[in-house]
């Protein structure tokens, strides 16, 4: 703001300068303002210690009388599932309801206007605004700068658009929460950091956003920190992400050490200096990918995401499904110039993505918590995105990112609507069963008809049934894998001794298998939640009802996006047959950013024939349909019993239901040894022995020893002093005369 004059000078020549795009700084600043306002409102009413009964807020006759029974009421309901409706509405709830979603809607409007401006001009180079020099240290010159290009525009529209819908949904979902302004301040802060992440013009600025969203994720997972499990889940997410961030930092250091630049334009220009296929560029890419596995929950660092479901459901929708966890995909697409030069690193990304996709999908088959199903589904779909960017189909990965943001946000918000209804019902009957367990649901179609229809749309979309969004994006990824397997820099490379071509066909097969499992577990979730007999209990049934419009409205909008999201990038083979609209819109839109890298990976290989592509599509659809039919035929919701009556699973089912005991394995292999080493070696020997014993107490003992020796010289006998003095003088005189 203060540096606008500088900005206009530095970006004077770009076609976007002078248009509304020069207001791009306002995009993140709006949510930041929301964070400040909501945060102040939250602090304003925060109780920093025991409440004073004499304050005007707590008249024993007026509010106290109504508050007391409410508190006992909430305690009886206890920690029922997801949300803890406690006392009265927050004092500033109305202001927050306007400010919180309001800044997002303004941001989204501005994003649309900037997008319109971008559509109007022909821009090859990104639009960069430099605000000030952030880290001028020797050769290292890092500016606080914003970069607006086609790739960041896609992310901005998703973040502000889906973000605004989720903010509106939260108004209904969180309205009775005592921490209402705090919730919205965190959510606004998250959007701010997410926009910094996608708008940063260099890796360090991106990293600021990267860490910031991690912080907000931590704050929101542990939003109900009164429950230790929630606070622990937040810490787990934070610590696991640190491991990934270490990799990202190392990648940045290596980039700077070898090519001396960290801004995206400079890296893209100088990437060739690293040498295509060299070990150096592979190492940089792999370290960067380590960061992605943390943030985007891929093997081996995915373990935090299922636990992150401890946060409020809209948070799961926004942060742990639609936006933050896709940051890794964005990072790889942003670094396409680097990844396209390293077939080994790219294949690693694709392999890890494929393994994650199938691994998480199998776990999703046996989860009972509705949000856990969606969490593993998210991990699995993120795996698909990494397969896409891994095989150099950066557009396909981004396309799936966008459609996934639509349908997964819809699924999560739909599950939020279900949990909201379940929780309200249990709340009013003082039942403290698990409001998120599908075994306690069943037959909700009757009570939540809008949610039911919309969630089925999203389920069909994620399963890959045309014409819903997920079909186009998932099919495009699988098609690209198939095409790359037949001819590209990847298919000629080898990965751990395996020929790239074989590997890519295997990834394709795994992708199809994961698609089958996706269709099965999503249908299972829908059947158990919405179909069959109702298992909530007789008294609760009368309390089940659809959520208010402030919640179903965003669901409907997301439903429309889920249906038509595929139009963003219709494949040519379909538009040639059925004139649905312009094809490959997104491919052309992202061409200036990732086109070069994509061409480098594909090596200019011929596209696979249209007939083959149609066959591939047919196979994918058949598999999705097979999965849904199989699930409907095999699963009998009528035979389910409520959670407290259910018998534990047996055999392999139990292994899957317990997530392959990965958490227990990590506990045993990593956490327990770390504790043991810390306690028995680091604490006992290094800290107590070396630091405390040798260094601290040891230096004191040495000083005391010298002091003791010195004190023995002081006998107090003047005669001896005189002798010493004379002997010293004679010795000195002797030394001088002998010389």
């Amino acid at each position: 703001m203060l540096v606008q004059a500088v900005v206009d000078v530095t970006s004077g020549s770009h076609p976007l300068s002078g248009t509304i795009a020069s207001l791009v700084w306002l995009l993140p600043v709006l949510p930041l303002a929301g964070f400040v306002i909501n945060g102040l409102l939250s602090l304003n009413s925060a109780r920093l210690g025991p409440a004073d009964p004499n304050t005007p807020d707590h008249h024993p006759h007026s509010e106290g009388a109504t508050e007391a029974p409410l508190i006992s009421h909430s305690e009886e309901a206890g920690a029922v599932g997801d949300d803890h409706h406690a006392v009265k509405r927050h004092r500033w709830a109305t202001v927050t309801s306007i400010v919180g979603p309001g800044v997002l809607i303004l941001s989204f409007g501005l994003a649309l206007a900037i997008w319109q401006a971008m559509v109007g001009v022909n821009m090859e180079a990104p639009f960069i605004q430099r605000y000030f020099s952030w880290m001028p240290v020797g050769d290292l010159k890092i500016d606080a700068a914003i970069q607006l290009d086609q790739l960041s525009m896609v992310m901005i529209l998703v973040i502000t658009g889906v973000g605004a819908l989720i903010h509106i949904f939260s108004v209904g979902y969180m309205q009775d929460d005592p921490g209402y302004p705090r919730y919205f301040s965190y959510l606004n802060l998250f959007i701010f950091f997410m926009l910094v992440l996608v708008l940063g013009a260099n890796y360090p600025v991106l990293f600021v956003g990267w860490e910031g969203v991690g912080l907000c994720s931590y704050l929101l997972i542990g939003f109900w920190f009164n429950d230790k499990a929630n606070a622990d889940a937040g810490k787990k997410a934070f610590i696991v992400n640190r491991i990934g961030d270490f990799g990202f930092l190392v990648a940045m250091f290596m980039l700077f050490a070898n090519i001396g630049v960290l801004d995206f334009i400079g890296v893209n220009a100088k990437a060739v200096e690293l040498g295509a296929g060299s070990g150096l560029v592979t190492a940089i890419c792999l370290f960067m990918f380590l960061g992605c596995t943390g943030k985007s929950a891929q093997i081996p660092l995915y373990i935090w995401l299922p636990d992150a479901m401890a946060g409020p459901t809209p948070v799961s929708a926004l942060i742990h499904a639609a936006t933050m966890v896709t940051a890794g995909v964005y990072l790889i697409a942003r670094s396409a110039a680097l990844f396209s030069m390293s077939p080994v690193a790219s294949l690693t990304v694709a392999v890890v993505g494929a393994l994650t996709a199938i691994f998480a999908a199998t776990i999703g088959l046996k989860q009972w918590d509705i949000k856990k199903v969606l969490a593993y589904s998210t991990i699995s779909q993120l795996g698909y995105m990494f397969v896409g960017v891994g095989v150099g189909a950066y557009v396909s990965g981004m396309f799936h990112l966008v459609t996934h943001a639509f349908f997964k946000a819809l699924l999560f918000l739909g599950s939020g609507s279900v949990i909201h209804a379940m929780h309200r019902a249990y709340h009013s009957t003082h039942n403290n069963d698990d409001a998120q367990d599908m075994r306690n649901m069943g037959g909700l179609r009757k009570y939540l008809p809008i949610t039911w229809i919309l969630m089925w749309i999203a389920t069909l979309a994620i399963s890959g049934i045309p014409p819903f969004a997920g079909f186009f994006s998932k099919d495009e990824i699988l098609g690209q894998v198939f095409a790359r397997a037949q001819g590209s820099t990847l298919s000629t490379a080898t990965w751990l001794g395996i020929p790239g071509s074989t590997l890519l066909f295997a990834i394709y097969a795994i992708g199809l298998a994961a698609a089958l499992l996706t269709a099965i577990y999503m249908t299972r979730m829908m059947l158990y939640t919405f179909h069959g007999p109702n298992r909530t209990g007789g008294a609760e049934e009368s309390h089940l009802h659809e959520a208010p419009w402030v919640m179903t409205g965003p669901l409907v909008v997301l439903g429309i996006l889920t249906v038509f999201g595929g139009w963003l990038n219709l494949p040519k083979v379909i538009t040639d047959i059925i004139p649905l609209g312009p094809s490959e819109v997104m491919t052309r839109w992202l061409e200036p950013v990732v086109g070069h890298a994509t061409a480098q990976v594909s090596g200019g290989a011929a596209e696979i024939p249209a007939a083959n592509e149609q066959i591939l599509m047919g196979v994918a659809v058949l598999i999705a349909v097979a999965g849904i039919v199989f699930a409907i035929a095999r699963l009998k919701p009528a035979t389910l019993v409520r959670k407290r009556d259910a018998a534990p699973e047996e055999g392999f089912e139990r292994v899957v239901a317990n997530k392959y005991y990965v958490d227990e394995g990590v506990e045993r292999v990593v956490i327990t040894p770390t504790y043991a080493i810390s306690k028995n070696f680091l604490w006992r020997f290094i800290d107590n022995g070396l630091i405390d014993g040798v260094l601290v107490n040891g230096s004191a003992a040495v000083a005391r020893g010298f002091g003791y020796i010195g004190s023995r010289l002081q006998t107090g006998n003047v005669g001896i002093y005189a002798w010493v003095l004379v002997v010293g003088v004679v010795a000195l005189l002797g030394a001088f005369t002998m010389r």
Partner: protein
Amino acid sequence: MLAESLALTAALFTIGVIGVLIHRNAIIIFMCVELMLTAVNLTFVAFSRFYGTAGQVFVVFVMTVSAAEAAVGLAIIIAIFRHRETVNLKDINLLRG
């Protein structure tokens, strides 16, 4: 001439040093210290006979300082004697570490 003078003063000084080293009585040690100062004064005088009068100026200074030192030193010795009824240095070791 100078050699004889220096031999005399050296002898005087050595007697003073030995006196300081072997005696236990504070008064005698004090007198030996005075003897050493006198030996130094004699040296100055002897040198001034050959190399100018600066040595005689020093003698005046040394005598002034030794007078002050004698006053302070004797006062301390008297104070110690009043307190401990002895001037034997073997019995006075308050500075023992």
